[in-house]
Protein backbone atom coordinates (compact mmCIF):
# COMPACT_ATOMS: atom_id res chain seq x y z
CA UNK A 1 0.00 0.00 0.00
CA UNK A 2 1.28 3.41 -0.91
CA UNK A 3 1.91 6.13 1.60
CA UNK A 4 0.16 9.47 1.44
CA UNK A 5 2.72 11.21 -0.75
CA UNK A 6 3.04 8.33 -3.19
CA UNK A 7 -0.71 7.95 -3.35
CA UNK A 8 -1.18 11.62 -4.07
CA UNK A 9 1.53 11.61 -6.72
CA UNK A 10 0.01 8.60 -8.44
CA UNK A 11 -3.43 10.14 -8.24
CA UNK A 12 -2.21 13.36 -9.82
CA UNK A 13 -1.00 11.21 -12.71
CA UNK A 14 -4.55 9.89 -12.90
CA UNK A 15 -3.60 6.46 -11.80
CA UNK A 16 -6.80 4.51 -11.57
CA UNK A 17 -5.72 2.35 -8.68
CA UNK A 18 -4.54 5.32 -6.70
CA UNK A 19 -7.75 7.18 -7.24
CA UNK A 20 -9.76 4.18 -6.15
CA UNK A 21 -7.59 3.75 -3.09
CA UNK A 22 -8.14 7.38 -2.16
CA UNK A 23 -11.86 6.88 -2.27
CA UNK A 24 -11.73 3.72 -0.20
CA UNK A 25 -9.51 5.37 2.37
CA UNK A 26 -11.22 8.70 2.83
CA UNK A 27 -14.84 8.31 1.80
CA UNK A 28 -16.04 6.83 5.14
CA UNK A 29 -14.25 9.51 7.13
CA UNK A 30 -15.64 12.28 4.97
CA UNK A 31 -19.07 10.77 5.34
CA UNK A 32 -18.84 10.73 9.12
CA UNK A 33 -17.56 14.27 9.22
CA UNK A 34 -20.30 15.47 6.94
CA UNK A 35 -22.94 13.57 8.86
CA UNK A 36 -21.83 15.26 12.06
CA UNK A 37 -22.37 18.59 10.43
CA UNK A 38 -25.57 18.11 8.49
CA UNK A 39 -27.13 15.17 10.39
CA UNK A 40 -28.64 13.73 7.24
CA UNK A 41 -27.39 10.51 5.69
CA UNK A 42 -28.61 11.34 2.21
CA UNK A 43 -27.08 14.78 2.30
CA UNK A 44 -23.85 13.38 3.68
CA UNK A 45 -23.71 10.79 0.94
CA UNK A 46 -24.33 13.42 -1.73
CA UNK A 47 -21.60 15.61 -0.29
CA UNK A 48 -19.18 12.70 -0.40
CA UNK A 49 -20.01 12.27 -4.07
CA UNK A 50 -19.46 15.95 -4.72
CA UNK A 51 -16.15 15.96 -2.86
CA UNK A 52 -14.69 13.16 -4.92
CA UNK A 53 -16.15 14.45 -8.15
CA UNK A 54 -14.41 17.76 -7.55
CA UNK A 55 -11.22 15.90 -6.73
CA UNK A 56 -11.35 14.10 -10.07
CA UNK A 57 -11.98 17.34 -11.94
CA UNK A 58 -9.07 19.01 -10.21
CA UNK A 59 -6.74 16.13 -11.01
CA UNK A 60 -7.88 16.07 -14.63
CA UNK A 61 -7.19 19.80 -14.90
CA UNK A 62 -3.71 19.39 -13.47
CA UNK A 63 -4.67 20.99 -10.17
CA UNK A 64 -5.64 19.59 -6.81
CA UNK A 65 -3.82 19.06 -3.56
CA UNK A 66 -0.06 19.01 -3.48
CA UNK A 67 0.80 17.90 0.00
CA UNK A 68 -2.09 17.19 2.35
CA UNK A 69 -4.79 15.23 0.62
CA UNK A 70 -6.78 14.63 3.79
CA UNK A 71 -7.01 18.32 4.64
CA UNK A 72 -7.95 19.05 1.05
CA UNK A 73 -10.83 16.60 1.11
CA UNK A 74 -12.11 17.89 4.43
CA UNK A 75 -11.79 21.45 3.20
CA UNK A 76 -13.89 20.62 0.17
CA UNK A 77 -16.46 18.91 2.34
CA UNK A 78 -16.48 21.84 4.73
CA UNK A 79 -17.22 24.31 1.95
CA UNK A 80 -19.95 22.13 0.52
CA UNK A 81 -21.59 21.78 3.93
CA UNK A 82 -21.39 25.52 4.51
CA UNK A 83 -22.91 26.20 1.11
CA UNK A 84 -25.75 23.81 1.76
CA UNK A 85 -26.41 25.21 5.20
CA UNK A 86 -26.59 28.68 3.71
CA UNK A 87 -29.06 27.49 1.13
CA UNK A 88 -31.40 25.53 3.34
CA UNK A 89 -30.52 26.34 6.92
CA UNK A 90 -31.20 22.71 7.50
CA UNK A 91 -30.37 21.30 10.89
CA UNK A 92 -31.55 17.81 11.38
CA UNK A 93 -32.17 16.45 14.86
CA UNK A 94 -29.20 15.10 16.69
CA UNK A 95 -30.68 11.72 17.18
CA UNK A 96 -28.84 10.55 14.13
CA UNK A 97 -25.64 10.69 16.06
CA UNK A 98 -26.77 9.85 19.51
CA UNK A 99 -29.18 7.12 18.48
CA UNK A 100 -26.42 4.85 17.37
CA UNK A 101 -24.14 5.55 20.25
CA UNK A 102 -24.93 2.36 22.06
CA UNK A 103 -26.32 0.42 19.22
CA UNK A 104 -26.79 -3.23 20.04
CA UNK A 105 -26.72 -2.87 23.82
CA UNK A 106 -29.92 -4.02 25.41
CA UNK A 107 -29.34 -3.33 29.10
CA UNK A 108 -27.03 -0.38 29.61
CA UNK A 109 -25.31 -0.03 32.93
CA UNK A 110 -25.64 2.99 35.18
CA UNK A 111 -22.36 4.41 33.97
CA UNK A 112 -23.37 4.00 30.42
CA UNK A 113 -26.64 5.74 31.05
CA UNK A 114 -24.88 8.64 32.69
CA UNK A 115 -22.41 8.85 29.89
CA UNK A 116 -25.19 8.81 27.35
CA UNK A 117 -26.89 11.66 29.14
CA UNK A 118 -23.65 13.57 29.07
CA UNK A 119 -23.21 12.90 25.39
CA UNK A 120 -26.72 14.03 24.61
CA UNK A 121 -26.15 17.21 26.50
CA UNK A 122 -22.83 17.76 24.76
CA UNK A 123 -24.26 17.26 21.29
CA UNK A 124 -27.20 19.47 22.09
CA UNK A 125 -24.85 22.19 23.28
CA UNK A 126 -22.72 21.85 20.15
CA UNK A 127 -25.74 22.35 17.97
CA UNK A 128 -27.44 25.09 19.92
CA UNK A 129 -24.81 27.06 21.80
CA UNK A 130 -21.87 27.08 19.43
CA UNK A 131 -21.53 29.27 16.42
CA UNK A 132 -20.87 27.80 13.02
CA UNK A 133 -17.16 28.47 13.21
CA UNK A 134 -16.90 27.13 16.74
CA UNK A 135 -18.73 23.97 15.78
CA UNK A 136 -16.48 23.40 12.77
CA UNK A 137 -13.34 24.02 14.77
CA UNK A 138 -14.41 21.74 17.62
CA UNK A 139 -15.34 18.93 15.26
CA UNK A 140 -12.18 19.23 13.19
CA UNK A 141 -9.91 19.53 16.20
CA UNK A 142 -11.37 16.95 18.60
CA UNK A 143 -13.44 14.60 16.48
CA UNK A 144 -11.33 14.50 13.34
CA UNK A 145 -7.97 15.03 15.04
CA UNK A 146 -6.72 17.82 12.81
CA UNK A 147 -3.98 20.08 14.08
CA UNK A 148 -4.46 23.78 14.54
CA UNK A 149 -2.63 24.48 11.31
CA UNK A 150 -4.67 21.98 9.34
CA UNK A 151 -7.87 23.28 10.82
CA UNK A 152 -6.86 26.78 9.88
CA UNK A 153 -6.21 25.66 6.32
CA UNK A 154 -9.53 23.87 6.05
CA UNK A 155 -11.59 26.73 7.39
CA UNK A 156 -9.48 29.40 5.81
CA UNK A 157 -8.48 31.37 8.89
CA UNK A 158 -5.31 32.16 10.77
CA UNK A 159 -4.01 29.74 13.39
CA UNK A 160 -4.37 32.29 16.17
CA UNK A 161 -7.93 32.90 15.12
CA UNK A 162 -8.58 29.16 15.28
CA UNK A 163 -7.17 29.09 18.80
CA UNK A 164 -9.51 31.83 19.92
CA UNK A 165 -12.49 30.16 18.28
CA UNK A 166 -11.62 26.84 19.87
CA UNK A 167 -11.24 28.27 23.37
CA UNK A 168 -14.48 30.16 23.14
CA UNK A 169 -16.25 27.06 21.88
CA UNK A 170 -14.96 24.91 24.67
CA UNK A 171 -15.89 27.56 27.20
CA UNK A 172 -19.43 27.59 25.86
CA UNK A 173 -19.64 23.80 26.03
CA UNK A 174 -18.27 23.80 29.56
CA UNK A 175 -20.84 26.36 30.56
CA UNK A 176 -23.60 24.36 28.94
CA UNK A 177 -22.42 21.14 30.62
CA UNK A 178 -21.63 22.81 33.91
CA UNK A 179 -24.53 21.21 35.67
CA UNK A 180 -23.53 17.75 34.54
CA UNK A 181 -19.88 18.28 35.32
CA UNK A 182 -20.71 19.48 38.81
CA UNK A 183 -22.86 16.43 39.33
CA UNK A 184 -20.06 14.22 38.10
CA UNK A 185 -17.62 15.87 40.48
CA UNK A 186 -19.88 15.05 43.35
Amino acid sequence: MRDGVGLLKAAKNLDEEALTAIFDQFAPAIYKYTLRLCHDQIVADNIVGDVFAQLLEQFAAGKGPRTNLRSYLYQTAYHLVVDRSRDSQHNAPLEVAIGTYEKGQFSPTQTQVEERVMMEALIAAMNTDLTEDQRHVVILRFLEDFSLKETAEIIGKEVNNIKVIQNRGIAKLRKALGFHLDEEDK
Partner: protein
Amino acid sequence: MEFDPQDRKVVELLTKLKGTNEGYPSDMLAARRQAYLNNMARVGLGTGTALKQTLKNGNAAGAAPISASTLLEVALVVAMVAEASALAYFYRDKIVGVFQSTSTKSNVQEIASPPAITSPFPELEISEVPSSAIPTGTASEMPTSTQVPGVADDPTSNNNGAATSTNSTPDPSVNNGNNGNHYGQTPKPERTKDNNDNQPPEDNPGNGNNDRPPQGGKDKNH
Protein backbone atom coordinates in the same frame (compact mmCIF):
# COMPACT_ATOMS: atom_id res chain seq x y z
CA MET B 1 -2.27 22.09 23.98
CA GLU B 2 -3.05 22.50 27.62
CA PHE B 3 -6.56 22.99 28.91
CA ASP B 4 -8.08 23.76 32.24
CA PRO B 5 -9.30 20.72 34.21
CA GLN B 6 -12.91 21.46 33.38
CA ASP B 7 -12.02 22.12 29.78
CA ARG B 8 -10.13 18.85 29.72
CA LYS B 9 -13.30 17.05 30.73
CA VAL B 10 -15.11 18.67 27.85
CA VAL B 11 -12.33 17.64 25.49
CA GLU B 12 -12.48 14.08 26.78
CA LEU B 13 -16.19 13.98 26.16
CA LEU B 14 -15.62 15.33 22.68
CA THR B 15 -13.06 12.65 21.89
CA LYS B 16 -15.53 10.05 23.05
CA LEU B 17 -17.92 11.34 20.43
CA LYS B 18 -15.60 10.08 17.73
CA GLY B 19 -17.06 6.62 17.84
CA THR B 20 -20.65 7.64 18.33
CA ASN B 21 -21.42 8.35 14.72
CA GLU B 22 -22.48 5.49 12.57
CA GLY B 23 -20.38 4.46 9.62
CA TYR B 24 -21.08 4.70 5.97
CA PRO B 25 -23.95 2.34 5.14
CA SER B 26 -22.59 -0.41 2.96
CA ASP B 27 -25.20 -0.09 0.25
CA MET B 28 -24.74 3.65 0.01
CA LEU B 29 -20.99 3.26 0.01
CA ALA B 30 -21.10 0.69 -2.78
CA ALA B 31 -23.37 2.86 -4.90
CA ARG B 32 -21.21 5.89 -4.30
CA ARG B 33 -18.08 3.98 -5.17
CA GLN B 34 -19.58 2.75 -8.41
CA ALA B 35 -20.60 6.28 -9.29
CA TYR B 36 -17.08 7.42 -8.55
CA LEU B 37 -15.62 4.79 -10.86
CA ASN B 38 -18.03 5.81 -13.60
CA ASN B 39 -17.05 9.40 -13.05
CA MET B 40 -13.42 8.43 -13.42
CA ALA B 41 -14.16 6.84 -16.79
CA ARG B 42 -16.18 9.85 -17.89
CA VAL B 43 -13.46 12.31 -16.97
CA GLY B 44 -11.16 10.54 -19.37
CA LEU B 45 -9.21 8.00 -17.46
CA GLY B 46 -10.48 5.11 -19.51
CA THR B 47 -10.44 6.63 -22.95
CA GLY B 48 -7.62 4.58 -24.32
CA THR B 49 -4.78 2.35 -23.36
CA ALA B 50 -2.18 4.41 -25.16
CA LEU B 51 -3.37 7.58 -23.55
CA LYS B 52 -3.37 5.99 -20.14
CA GLN B 53 0.09 4.61 -20.73
CA THR B 54 1.29 8.04 -21.71
CA LEU B 55 -0.16 9.44 -18.54
CA LYS B 56 1.38 6.73 -16.43
CA ASN B 57 4.79 7.38 -17.92
CA GLY B 58 5.02 10.61 -16.04
CA ASN B 59 3.65 13.29 -18.29
CA ALA B 60 1.88 16.19 -16.76
CA ALA B 61 -1.67 15.50 -15.80
CA GLY B 62 -3.29 17.85 -18.25
CA ALA B 63 -0.80 17.50 -21.06
CA ALA B 64 -2.57 14.79 -23.02
CA PRO B 65 -5.98 16.45 -23.24
CA ILE B 66 -4.33 19.71 -24.20
CA SER B 67 -2.24 18.10 -26.92
CA ALA B 68 -5.25 16.21 -28.27
CA SER B 69 -7.31 19.37 -28.42
CA THR B 70 -4.42 21.20 -30.05
CA LEU B 71 -4.08 18.50 -32.66
CA LEU B 72 -7.78 18.62 -33.36
CA GLU B 73 -7.69 22.37 -33.66
CA VAL B 74 -4.74 22.30 -36.06
CA ALA B 75 -6.43 19.62 -38.17
CA LEU B 76 -9.58 21.73 -38.40
CA VAL B 77 -7.64 24.83 -39.42
CA VAL B 78 -5.73 22.89 -42.09
CA ALA B 79 -8.97 21.47 -43.45
CA MET B 80 -10.54 24.92 -43.63
CA VAL B 81 -7.54 26.37 -45.44
CA ALA B 82 -7.46 23.47 -47.92
CA GLU B 83 -11.15 23.85 -48.63
CA ALA B 84 -10.82 27.57 -49.19
CA SER B 85 -7.87 27.04 -51.50
CA ALA B 86 -9.73 24.44 -53.55
CA LEU B 87 -12.76 26.69 -53.89
CA ALA B 88 -10.57 29.58 -54.94
CA TYR B 89 -8.90 27.41 -57.56
CA PHE B 90 -12.15 26.12 -59.04
CA TYR B 91 -13.78 29.53 -59.16
CA ARG B 92 -10.72 31.50 -60.08
CA ASP B 93 -12.33 32.81 -63.32
CA LYS B 94 -15.29 34.19 -61.43
CA ILE B 95 -13.05 35.70 -58.83
CA VAL B 96 -10.97 37.42 -61.51
CA GLY B 97 -14.17 38.67 -63.13
CA VAL B 98 -15.36 40.06 -59.86
CA PHE B 99 -12.11 41.90 -59.34
CA GLN B 100 -12.14 43.25 -62.88
CA SER B 101 -15.71 44.47 -62.61
CA THR B 102 -14.82 46.16 -59.43
CA SER B 103 -11.88 47.94 -61.04
CA THR B 104 -14.03 48.98 -64.08
CA LYS B 105 -16.63 50.44 -61.86
CA SER B 106 -14.06 52.57 -60.22
CA ASN B 107 -12.92 53.99 -63.63
CA VAL B 108 -16.46 54.93 -64.56
CA GLN B 109 -16.89 56.71 -61.36
CA GLU B 110 -13.76 58.70 -62.00
CA ILE B 111 -15.02 59.74 -65.40
CA ALA B 112 -18.34 60.77 -64.02
CA SER B 113 -16.71 63.40 -61.90
CA PRO B 114 -17.70 67.03 -62.60
CA PRO B 115 -16.32 68.24 -66.01
CA ALA B 116 -13.46 70.65 -65.99
CA ILE B 117 -14.10 73.97 -67.80
CA THR B 118 -11.20 74.78 -70.06
CA SER B 119 -12.34 78.16 -71.23
CA PRO B 120 -14.27 80.59 -69.14
CA PHE B 121 -16.16 81.97 -72.15
CA PRO B 122 -16.74 79.21 -74.61
CA GLU B 123 -19.73 80.82 -76.30
CA LEU B 124 -17.84 83.91 -77.35
CA GLU B 125 -15.07 81.98 -78.97
CA ILE B 126 -17.08 79.34 -80.73
CA SER B 127 -19.61 81.26 -82.72
CA GLU B 128 -20.70 84.76 -83.47
CA VAL B 129 -24.09 84.42 -82.11
CA PRO B 130 -26.15 87.57 -82.13
CA SER B 131 -25.75 89.24 -78.87
CA SER B 132 -29.47 89.23 -78.43
CA ALA B 133 -29.24 85.53 -77.90
CA ILE B 134 -26.87 85.90 -75.05
CA PRO B 135 -29.33 87.23 -72.51
CA THR B 136 -31.50 84.27 -73.18
CA GLY B 137 -28.47 82.23 -72.36
CA THR B 138 -29.33 78.87 -71.20
CA ALA B 139 -26.36 77.70 -69.27
CA SER B 140 -23.83 80.36 -69.96
CA GLU B 141 -21.46 81.27 -67.24
CA MET B 142 -20.78 84.66 -68.76
CA PRO B 143 -21.45 87.63 -66.62
CA THR B 144 -23.60 89.10 -69.45
CA SER B 145 -26.21 86.49 -68.78
CA THR B 146 -27.53 88.70 -66.07
CA GLN B 147 -29.09 91.77 -67.54
CA VAL B 148 -28.50 95.07 -65.91
CA PRO B 149 -31.73 96.96 -65.52
CA GLY B 150 -31.94 99.97 -67.79
CA VAL B 151 -29.12 98.87 -70.01
CA ALA B 152 -30.02 97.59 -73.44
CA ASP B 153 -27.93 95.55 -75.73
CA ASP B 154 -26.47 97.27 -78.74
CA PRO B 155 -26.97 95.14 -81.80
CA THR B 156 -24.77 97.41 -83.89
CA SER B 157 -21.77 97.14 -81.73
CA ASN B 158 -18.91 95.23 -83.19
CA ASN B 159 -16.48 94.88 -80.41
CA ASN B 160 -15.77 91.22 -80.84
CA GLY B 161 -15.12 90.28 -77.31
CA ALA B 162 -14.86 93.70 -75.79
CA ALA B 163 -16.76 94.35 -72.67
CA THR B 164 -20.35 94.94 -73.48
CA SER B 165 -20.71 97.44 -70.71
CA THR B 166 -19.22 100.12 -73.00
CA ASN B 167 -22.18 99.85 -75.34
CA SER B 168 -24.76 99.83 -72.67
CA THR B 169 -25.86 103.38 -73.38
CA PRO B 170 -28.28 103.42 -76.30
CA ASP B 171 -27.45 105.40 -79.35
CA PRO B 172 -29.49 108.61 -79.56
CA SER B 173 -29.63 108.41 -83.34
CA VAL B 174 -31.38 105.14 -83.25
CA ASN B 175 -33.79 105.76 -80.54
CA ASN B 176 -37.35 106.61 -80.93
CA GLY B 177 -36.98 110.18 -79.85
CA ASN B 178 -37.18 109.62 -76.20
CA ASN B 179 -33.65 109.73 -74.99
CA GLY B 180 -34.43 110.56 -71.46
CA ASN B 181 -32.24 112.81 -69.47
CA HIS B 182 -28.98 111.15 -70.12
CA TYR B 183 -25.84 113.14 -70.04
CA GLY B 184 -25.09 114.63 -73.46
CA GLN B 185 -28.44 113.79 -74.85
CA THR B 186 -30.44 116.63 -73.55
CA PRO B 187 -32.37 118.63 -76.10
CA LYS B 188 -30.13 121.08 -77.79
CA PRO B 189 -31.04 124.75 -77.69
CA GLU B 190 -31.55 126.51 -80.97
CA ARG B 191 -28.43 128.00 -82.39
CA THR B 192 -28.50 131.68 -83.03
CA LYS B 193 -25.00 132.14 -84.30
CA ASP B 194 -22.42 129.87 -85.76
CA ASN B 195 -19.21 129.72 -83.94
CA ASN B 196 -16.51 127.58 -85.39
CA ASP B 197 -14.49 127.70 -82.24
CA ASN B 198 -17.19 126.18 -80.27
CA GLN B 199 -18.40 123.36 -82.36
CA PRO B 200 -20.55 120.97 -80.57
CA PRO B 201 -19.29 117.50 -80.44
CA GLU B 202 -20.42 115.28 -83.18
CA ASP B 203 -22.16 112.26 -82.15
CA ASN B 204 -20.68 109.43 -84.00
CA PRO B 205 -22.86 106.49 -83.56
CA GLY B 206 -20.24 104.20 -84.85
CA ASN B 207 -17.23 105.00 -82.70
CA GLY B 208 -18.77 103.85 -79.52
CA ASN B 209 -17.79 107.00 -77.69
CA ASN B 210 -21.15 108.61 -77.21
CA ASP B 211 -20.84 109.60 -73.65
CA ARG B 212 -18.07 112.14 -74.04
CA PRO B 213 -18.97 115.45 -72.53
CA PRO B 214 -18.82 118.66 -74.69
CA GLN B 215 -15.35 120.05 -75.11
CA GLY B 216 -14.28 123.37 -73.61
CA GLY B 217 -17.03 123.64 -71.16
CA LYS B 218 -17.92 127.17 -72.47
CA ASP B 219 -21.34 128.44 -72.96
CA LYS B 220 -22.37 128.08 -76.61
CA ASN B 221 -24.42 131.23 -76.52
CA HIS B 222 -21.36 133.46 -76.33
